[in-house]
């Protein structure tokens, strides 16, 4: 790396923990992890991926970024129980020291307070003050684009766009302690009514956008990497993102934007 920042960062390693990668991977969640890995390595930043499965304890201090994807109903239920039993305290403590926690689709639902399926209510980790209930009438499916304001400093500057695909039967409602990740520009979002998509509390982020999310929004992958390493995104060496930018536009276009 010729870049001065890159040289400094070269000594750094992004330590990622994928939660239940063999079960919670239904929407090609592997693509999100691959984006993080390649974009670190191309910049000379180390990348260390650990998988944490059913029954395995979680070391809160060993990772900078925790990733939880979506799964089939049965697998999601298994993981929900396991999260509460063997990982929830660690995840909370990691979030408290500002590690990044990203939940996508089913992973987003599990980061919330609860998920109600008919008579049954599954308790979530509660990192996000949201509740999800399954409505049987219709799944919310389609391309989606949202506007996000991620940096607290530029609260009134123009937002950026995240584009992706959503496919969920659950309707998620934000509690008083939760802020939405973004405003729906096209698509359904949390519940198809509120105009809100996802939720965010500090560095904990939940969203329904898959497709996968990061390959369609390379800028957001960089934002997550920077957050997880506790640096400013401008400190990351620039990459040749011509293909990534085209893919982002393609996904926005598919959503009708």
């Amino acid at each position, binding site marked *: 790396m010729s870049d001065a920042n890159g040289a400094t960062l070269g000594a750094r390693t992004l330590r990622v923990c994928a939660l239940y990668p063999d079960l919670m991977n*239904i929407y*090609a969640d*592997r693509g999100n992890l691959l984006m993080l890995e390649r974009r670190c390595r191309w910049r000379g930043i180390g990348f260390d991926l650990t998988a944490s499965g059913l029954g395995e304890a979680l070391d809160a201090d060993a990772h900078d970024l925790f990733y939880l994807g979506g799964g*089939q109903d049965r697998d999601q239920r298994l993981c929900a129980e396991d999260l509460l039993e063997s990982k929830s305290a660690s995840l909370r403590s990691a979030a408290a020291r500002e590690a990044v926690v990203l939940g996508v689709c089913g992973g987003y639902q599990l980061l919330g307070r609860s998920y109600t399926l008919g008579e049954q209510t599954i308790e979530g980790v509660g990192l996000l003050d949201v509740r999800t209930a399954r409505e049987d009438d219709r799944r919310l499916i389609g*391309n989606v684009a949202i506007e996000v304001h991620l940096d607290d400093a530029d609260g009134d500057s123009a937002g950026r766009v995240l584009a992706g695909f959503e496919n969920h039967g659950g309707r998620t409602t934000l509690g008083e302690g939760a802020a939405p990740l973004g405003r729906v520009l096209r698509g359904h979002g949390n519940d198809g009514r509120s105009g809100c998509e996802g939720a965010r509390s500090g560095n904990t982020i939940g969203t329904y956008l898959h*497709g*996968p999310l990061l390959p369609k929004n390379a800028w957001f992958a960089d934002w997550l990497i920077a957050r997880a390493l506790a640096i400013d995104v401008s400190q990351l060496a620039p990459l040749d993102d011509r293909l990534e930018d*085209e*893919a982002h536009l393609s996904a926005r276009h598919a959503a009708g934007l």
Partner: protein
Amino acid sequence: MAGALAPKLALARAVAALSRLRGGGGTSAPGKVLLGLDGDAIGALGARLRRGSVLVSATNGKTTTTAMLAGILERAGVPIVHNAAGANMASGIATALLAATRRRGAIAGELGLFEVDELWLDAVAVQLRPRVILLANLFRDQLDRYGELETIAERWANDVEAERFVLNADDPLIADLGRDRPEALYFGVEDDSLALPGMAHAADAKHCRRCGAPYVFEAIYLGHLGHYHCDSCGQRRPQPAVIASDVTLEGVRAASFTLHTPAGQARVSLALPGLYNVYNALGAAALATALEIGLASIVAGLQSARAAFGRAETVTLLPAQASNGAGNGDARAPRELRILLVKNPAGANEVLRTLALEPGEHDVLGVLNDKIADGRDVSWIWDADFELLAGRVRSFTCSGTRAPELAVRVKYAGIDPARIRVRPDLRVALDEAAADRPDRVAPLYALPTYTAMLSLRELLVARGEVSSSWS
């Protein structure tokens, strides 16, 4: 009954004629009209088939398996009614039956052979009351349309009936459908040399259908197909009666195996590539076995099977098309275009694995569409192992409605971005990809999704490079 049906048949036939006049394919429109007039038409027409019907369903390989069966039945002298064009929802099956109906309640065929869409299987089976249903596999496919695999498996378990089931012993989701069906006939692969080092990234069916404990896989052949058992409840892969052993894979061209059936064994040479086609052949052989068709007809039928529409089909590009632009090889020589349909991770992985068996660096034209028949959600490309092509690509042209997203996928798979070009317009993409040729004689490999494959063929038909198969 036939009297009441006759005017409806006539009307639907008129629609078929009109549809053809307007240049439409007519593979499902007439059936749609017929079903609008009479919701039970499939049952009524199916009842005219002297030997009844057999159905084939799966997420992967329906069209090829059914085409192989058509070949076997032809050799066995059984006249069939068959939805050969791959229109596999109720309307497509009704169209095939309508096309075979003759005057006075007659029908041109003795046995119905239909491939059926996964979600239509219950409705079609209620109508046709089939003799045999072949269920070949359940792989992750178009989640936005089909939903979860478990949901399909539940539907098949609860709502689909037939006199007999032919099931893939190597797919735990499928094999379990035989739980309360002692007459089920199983088929499977038994060849240790084929076992993969591990499961695909997005393999499904990792947990026991009965008790939820993780399956232990002794061997994995393809996706989640293999030899498995459950330590917790003792469930295990059923012993198949129809088996493939000693499998030999010959790149994108061919495959061969030894077929074992209760009637004896024989070596089978397929003119189709890949282990996935061995599975297709094995399913066809098992269904034919259930119909008590002789081994000689089975072998002859399988060996005569050629690529079904757009599946491992080879087209010769005329020099005019192959020589536009700055070619580096002999621009006047015709060039082969091999079309390998990819539509979901399991299918794509087998195509990529097969392609990787061919030596050298390849020229690839990937066409990613997101129309309804492709699945609107293109996230599946990240579950497909394009990594298999890393270091093996001379050029990768990305086309289709979501071309740039395919380009990002292959870039992150380790293909040099300098070798990737993005040309959303298929015509431009085909011309440039065909013209960019190496010094040696080498084919261009097209990997299109379903609607992209139709567009590609249409383009080739318009240029006179391939004849229309709708005729």
